């Protein structure tokens, strides 16, 4: 993946203190066998590390296995399996869709090839859906965790980052004041956009 971070002026104390991507993202599984089969054999992510331990973290911490798949660019996807832990209820539909992991591919053909591979392994997968800057397919892992494979429609540009700053300022302004609505946010954003255009015309 190309570096799509826009140029920003960092405070001096952060210039030498930069985070460098995801090391690992960790989830909990109650289905270790299916999880390994899915991530290693279907998605082709090498199983690279597993640690097993008694629950040493705190008095009530269960005994566990913690295992890691390599995502291919130095980052990892990890799972905990906890012995004796009752299975938790699945989240509701909106939280299921919202909390997801999107994996990157570069081209439309790769996206289509992944869709074909998932279908061939009996995984239910959506048709490609084009968002603003990304086109994606969606499917669930054996734990019911939503995954996405996505490809860029165009790179993120500096204008996207500047606009994002104004959008989040508008959102912060309306969430600070009681009951926010999307209309209130859009009206506030309109004020900020107008200020931007007036500054340009000065």
């Amino acid at each position, binding site marked *: 993946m190309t570096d799509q971070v826009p140029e920003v002026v960092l405070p001096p104390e952060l210039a030498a203190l930069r985070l460098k991507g995801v090391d690992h993202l960790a989830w909990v599984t109650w289905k270790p066998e299916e999880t390994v089969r899915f991530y290693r054999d279907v998605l082709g992510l090498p199983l690279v590390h597993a640690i097993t331990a008694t629950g040493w973290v705190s008095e009530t911490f269960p005994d566990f296995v913690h295992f890691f798949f390599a995502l291919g660019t130095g980052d990892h996807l990890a799972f905990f399996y906890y012995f004796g832990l009752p299975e938790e209820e699945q989240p509701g539909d909106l939280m299921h869709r919202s909390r997801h992991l999107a994996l990157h591919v570069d081209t439309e053909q790769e996206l289509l090839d992944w869709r074909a591979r998932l279908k061939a392994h009996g995984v239910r997968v959506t048709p490609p859906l084009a968002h603003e800057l990304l086109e994606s397919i969606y499917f669930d892992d054996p734990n019911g965790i939503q995954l996405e494979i996505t490809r860029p429609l165009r790179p993120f540009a500096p204008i996207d980052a500047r606009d994002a700053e104004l959008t989040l300022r508008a959102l912060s302004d309306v969430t600070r004041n009681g009951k926010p609505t999307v209309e209130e946010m859009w009206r*506030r954003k309109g*004020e900020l956009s107008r200020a931007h255009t007036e500054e340009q015309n000065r």
Partner: protein
Amino acid sequence: MTTLYVLDIPEFGAFVEAAENQDMTVRRAGDYVEVTTDGPLEIQRAQVGARPAIWFAALTAGYQGRLVTLDEDRLLLVEK
């Protein structure tokens, strides 16, 4: 007067064209295109032809006025 701001990126270009075709006032300044009209500002989905993710994000850059409708077919803003 009603104003719609449109972020000046390719994905939203069809909104600006639709406004120009309806003789709305279109002014580019910095990152945004300011679309202004006297009275209601109405854009039909059919004039824009945007995919759902773009159409329903039509107001991302904000507006001045009151939102009456943003549904599958139509965007309508009116004066306050």
